[in-house]
């Protein structure tokens, strides 16, 4: 039990301290609070742009663009999925936390909902 507690402590304190968007983000989006769709983003900072994919695996979607406004840490992600264009715009919160979040508005085709993703 003590070993488990130590492991949990270690997991909670090791944070990525580089570009705040780099890493894997998990969460969901939906039109309302009950109909939710799981989403995963893998983002990377190459020194000039944030690049990445959505939902890694056989059906992964490359991100067309990721724009970050560092003056207020708003993030806009654009991608073209098979079933429509995705535009997600949100705000990065709790910048210093390992489990920081992005919360905002999700648009897919004509549908509009909300999303929340948390850095793994």
């Amino acid at each position, binding site marked *: 039990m003590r070993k488990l507690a130590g492991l949990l402590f270690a997991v909670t304190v090791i944070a990525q301290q*580089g*570009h*705040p968007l*780099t890493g894997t983000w998990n969460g969901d989006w939906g039109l309302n609070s009950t109909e939710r769709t799981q989403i995963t983003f893998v983002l990377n*900072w190459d*020194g000039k742009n944030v690049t990445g994919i959505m939902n890694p695996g056989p059906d992964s979607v490359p991100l067309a663009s990721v724009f970050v406004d560092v003056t207020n840490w708003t993030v806009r992600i654009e991608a073209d999925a098979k079933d429509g264009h995705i535009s997600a715009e949100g705000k990065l919160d709790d910048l210093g936390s390992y489990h920081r979040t992005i919360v905002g508005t999700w648009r897919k085709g004509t549908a509009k909902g909300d999303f929340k993703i948390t850095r793994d």
Partner: protein
Amino acid sequence: MRRFLLAVLSSALVCAQVSYDSGRKVVLAGPVTRIEWANPNAYVFLNVKDAAGTIANWAVQIGNPLDLEHDGWKSSVLHIGDVVSIEGNPARGSSRRAFATSVVLVRTGAKLFTASAKRAVKPPAQPAPRWPDGHVRLGVVPGTKGYWGASSATTLMETAVPITPEGLLVNLSDADKVAPLQPWAKAVFEYRQRTLLKDDPLGRCLPPGGPRQFQTPHGFQFIEQPELGRILVLLGGGDRNWRVIYTDGRPVGQKDEDVRTYYGTSVGHWGKDTLVVDSVGFNERFWMSSNGLPHTEALHLTERFSRPDLNTLKYQVNIDDPRAYTRPWNAGWTIAWVPGEEIQEYFCEENAESTFLR
């Protein structure tokens, strides 16, 4: 004053959750309830009665116990029940903690735990020691003791600007002078400054990778092993970590699949009297400076170590991280030799925050 600065720095480094506000003062008086004479920080606890008659227990940091002993002080100068009057700087936040700038034993009026003038005396200048092959010896000479102690700069900056010992800029508008930050990196740096460095990984006992390892208050030591083609850097601060600099002629670099680490992969070679060390392969889990400068996995450090005389180590570093900075940049400082002593035992997990102050 020097001890005060070192202790504040020490507190900022080992325990980011407890930093002292040098802009505020607190005066405390009452009977001593407990004395903790343990590395790295000695504490006096006392019961303080407020105007309403309510008694609260305060924890007051009085310095490093080994420094205090070098100045001739022992814990026995104070006893449980003695009434003391203490002036100091309170901790940021609401905790009842302070760092003492003055401790007076009320019964006699004696000032306790003051610094000795003799400790401020610099050791006499002597030439740097050398190995039989002629190159400078960075470590201790056989038969003697010593280690590298206080650095002339408390944090990493390209241009010196006003900054507190903890690493907080006096004027946040000076951020552009600290380093040539990319916009995102400047925003992160300013966030860390505005939040009083609360997320510093070193405060959670993670290692002081990069240049920061040479600004820790508990010093460091070089163990040169030419027969093994390596130099070990033993750190007194940062939880007694160690780092390897390979001098066996291997190429500089890191394979993509190699594990990235807090100290990276370091390869060194001697150029006349200077050890030149290239390091890559860093992870992004640490702050390379106490002021919160960010870096990425692209970080490449070129460090130069020289010893112009026995008592001085000159450290220069080139920071090349094209994902965080707009251009490579340089910083440097000197570090003073502490003759006749060994690095003190210090473990981050045993600091006051995590043990007896709870």
